[in-house]
């Protein structure tokens, strides 16, 4: 009985709603909605034009349907595209101006924004529904010439950088969801690291969906100028609701000569209940361009939430000697589905990529690794190493691996390893015999299985991620 109680409490502890008055755009996907978003954000005309151009392209595009997890048709006219806490309609100038209810929400989520309790050495941009409500440690970063602010603020204050790079990695008309995002994106983070600067702290964005019937379309743009380094982390949660909510984000990374971007995601959107009702549709486009020579982009993702996760954080390895990495843990339990992986596009000489994917499937869930390694004819001496491991728990779940390899250069080296294992009863017995209960045993074994990916996360988040891995799989064995 006691165990049952604890289990229920831990199920999805971020599932609460904050009762707050919000301003919303009228329902539906129309030119007026886009104009509303642009005008409430006081955007310059070029930005509105860009959005409208995307909207026009969208009309000619079809929603893709090649993915494995199918979902009921989304009624795009029945969604809100903008929802913001009323108190944030004028972006608060300081933390004192932020609605206490919002501060309380982030505190509950473990992301304190107020000065005294800030996370040590981590600057946070907090996005609540469609707007950024606070960015911490701004002054300290400004001294080094680092820009870390909401994308809305960047459009106002740094239009040249935004114009130059926005849409340069994910073109306006890339595919349905990316184009939808370009038309209606509401907020997200903007980062610029000046040449030869090592960002002195972790930058992070915390995304929170609160309002119902609302899609979240965030846009993140990170530019690492020559010889710079930045480590960035995003986290996400949402309330528990019976409806499915759409989250279609675009994330663009640009690394110039000798620059490095490390991008980590801990995705814990509401996954739906035990019977597969509700949960977030997490349809995200993430792409990084290693534009300069010797540049490096490393994606690490821990995907535990969402009803459906559908994303392929990718690297375009343009610069000679550039490096792309993808480390992924995707956990699906109950009726969750994931179709995730990466694309490594090798264009420059001596480019290297590494893919480590760990898929864990329990309950009735389905987990797919889908990846592309594409070696261009000019990419001499390119190397790729791919390792895809799947772990199954129980006999109603599925694991699939679909690696695409296109090789047009004979000097390249491509390695692919894949394993599928079932969680081993003998291992569980061994752990039980050493005093660990079933859940502790599963947590230990699964964390071991994921170790290579977990150790890529910044220290501050690795422990949290380990706990999350354990919680996501509670009740899946025994």
């Amino acid at each position, binding site marked *: 009985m006691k165990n049952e109680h604890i289990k229920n409490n831990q199920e999805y502890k971020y599932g609460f709603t904050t009762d707050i008055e919000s301003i919303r755009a009228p329902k539906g996907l129309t030119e007026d909605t886009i104009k509303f978003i642009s005008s409430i954000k006081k955007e310059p005309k070029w930005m509105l034009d860009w959005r409208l151009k995307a909207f026009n392209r969208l009309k000619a595009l079809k929603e893709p349907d090649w993915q494995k997890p199918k979902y009921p048709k989304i009624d795009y006219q029945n969604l809100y595209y903008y929802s913001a806490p009323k108190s944030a309609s004028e972006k608060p100038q300081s933390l004192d101006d932020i609605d206490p209810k919002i501060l309380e929400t982030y505190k509950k989520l473990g992301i304190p924004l107020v000065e005294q309790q800030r996370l040590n050495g981590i600057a946070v941009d907090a996005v609540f529904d469609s707007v950024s409500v606070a960015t911490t440690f701004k002054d300290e970063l400004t001294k080094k010439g680092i820009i870390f602010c909401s994308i809305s603020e960047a459009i106002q204050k740094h239009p040249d950088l935004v114009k130059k790079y926005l849409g340069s990695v994910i073109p306006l008309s890339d595919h349905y969801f990316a184009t939808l995002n370009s038309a209606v994106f509401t907020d997200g983070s903007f980062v610029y690291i000046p040449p030869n600067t090592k960002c002195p702290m972790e930058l992070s964005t915390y995304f929170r969906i609160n309002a119902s019937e609302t899609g979240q379309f965030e846009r993140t743009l990170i530019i690492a100028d020559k010889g710079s380094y930045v480590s960035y982390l995003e986290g996400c949660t949402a309330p528990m609701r019976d409806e499915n909510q759409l989250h279609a984000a675009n994330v663009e990374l640009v690394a110039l000569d000798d620059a490095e971007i490390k991008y980590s995601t801990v995705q814990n959107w509401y996954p739906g209940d035990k019977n597969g009702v509700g949960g977030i549709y997490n349809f995200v486009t993430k792409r990084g361009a290693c534009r300069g020579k010797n540049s490096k982009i490393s994606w690490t993702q821990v995907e535990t939430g969402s009803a459906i996760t559908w994303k392929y954080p990718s690297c375009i390895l343009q610069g000679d000697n550039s490096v792309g990495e993808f480390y992924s843990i995707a956990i699906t339990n109950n009726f969750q589905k994931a179709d995730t992986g990466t694309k490594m596009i090798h264009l420059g000489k001596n480019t290297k990529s590494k893919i480590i994917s760990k898929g864990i499937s329990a309950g009735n869930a389905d987990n797919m690794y889908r990846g592309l390694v594409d070696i261009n004819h000019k990419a001499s001496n390119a190397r790729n190493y791919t390792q895809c491991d799947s772990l199954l728990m129980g006999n109603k779940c599925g694991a699939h691996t679909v690696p695409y390899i296109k090789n047009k250069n004979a000097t390249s080296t491509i390695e692919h390893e894949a394993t599928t294992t079932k969680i*081993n*009863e*003998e*291992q569980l*017995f*061994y*752990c*039980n*015999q*050493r*005093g*660990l*209960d*079933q859940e*502790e045993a599963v947590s*230990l*074994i699964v*964390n*071991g*299985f*994921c*170790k*290579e990916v977990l150790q890529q996360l910044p220290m501050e988040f690795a422990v949290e991620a380990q706990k999350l891995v354990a919680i996501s799989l509670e009740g899946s064995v025994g």
Partner: protein
Amino acid sequence: MLKIKNLKATVDSKLILKGLNLNIKPGEVHAIMGPNGSGKSTLANILSGKKGYEIEGEINFNGIDLKELPTETRAQQGIFLAFQYPLEIPGVNTNIFLKTSLNAVRKARGEKELDTLTFLKLIKEKALELGIDEKFLSRQLNVGFSGGEKKKNEILQMKLLEPKLSILDETDSGLDIDALKIVANGVNSYKNKENAFLIITHYQRLLDYIKPDYIHVLSDGKIIKTGSADLGGQLEKTGYTNLS
């Protein structure tokens, strides 16, 4: 401490244990010998709570009916099984496994959980006592360990968890003489008036180093003979077939 009365166990509708009786008191060392397939490992598995057996009869451990208890509770109550084939758990550091295990047991016993520093100090001491190289504590649990290292690791875990009843399931098989001595030293140094051992083995060899109080011969699911430490030497000469 342990009272087994008329224990019968069936697996896949095959009767393996056919009415086994055994009493173990604190401070005693019991050895079970017997031919292959006589049910020795089944007994070890049943005592530690492995699933998959249909069980009849009584198993009483310090006044508790063991049959009702899940594996981890038995472990927390002080039953330890040194595995014949210790499992590999990739990606899990041996130190972390041992700490998690010790703290789970301590917690269940109402003792304070140990922080990392205190734990590391303790585990290094225990490893040193056993002559185990502490380097292996930072390797992945049993992954790439030699047969001897795995068995030594089992004995280290035993000393760490301080069980009341330690069951050694053919811990001596596949050991060279040095590793065998380490295992035997581990047992002898831990042995006291409060705890007991059940040693399952094929060979007299281990019993030259660990003196048992009783030797039982298990054959076809029953104990057919019980004797003192001398019985082992006798068996070595005559084999099991001439008994009964």
